[in-house]
């Protein structure tokens, strides 16, 4: 049995949004946080990987699957992760219909983009949970 506050639980999905400064960068960040909040994945710091922090890289290696969410085609998150040798399931918001400089970051766009990335599993979570985090 894990000790209190133990960080040794199995790591399934890790999500790395690019969290860039543009509207789509912000959207990627909000999507990552939404997915993490619903417990579908754990959100991780891309900056730690880019900075080659050994603890961060070794922690990410423990994941079963790594997802990158990039706001634009520059694909910084995907490339940063690949640069240190990770195999990544990559999503780009441009491919999902969100244009840099023309995207409003609001609940609708967050929900729509998150749904496209999770294949609708966010809605399933919302339906299953009553008063859970995803209904907020």
């Amino acid at each position: 049995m894990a000790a209190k506050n133990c960080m040794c639980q199995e790591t399934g999905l890790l999500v790395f949004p690019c969290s860039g400064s543009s509207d789509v960068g912000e959207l990627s960040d909000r999507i990552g946080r939404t997915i993490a909040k619903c417990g579908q994945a754990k959100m991780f710091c891309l900056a730690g990987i880019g900075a080659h922090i050994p603890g961060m890289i070794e922690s990410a290696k423990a994941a079963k699957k790594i997802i990158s969410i990039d706001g634009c085609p520059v694909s910084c998150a995907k490339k940063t992760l690949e640069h240190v040798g990770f195999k990544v399931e990559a999503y780009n918001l441009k491919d999902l219909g969100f244009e840099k400089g023309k995207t409003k970051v609001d609940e609708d766009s967050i929900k729509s983009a998150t749904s496209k990335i999770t294949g609708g599993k966010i809605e399933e979570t919302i339906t299953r949970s009553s008063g859970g985090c995803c209904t907020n």
Partner: protein
Amino acid sequence: MKIEILGVGCPKCKQLTANAEAAVKELNIAAEISKITDIDEITEYGVMMTPALAVDGTVVSAGKVLSKDDIKKIISK
């Protein structure tokens, strides 16, 4: 050589500690093994998954219990 086991003290951390001690004993090298159990201190290493193993201040593994032989390979480098 300084070997640190990072983890709050669950069975996985204890197993990793035991494996590290066995590895050091078999290699017959001078190594100081210590445990870091404070979460704030663990996260200062960038570790988000425990147990983790650090050698001379560098994290070489996180989120898994390395075997004695795995540890021997790492510290023999």
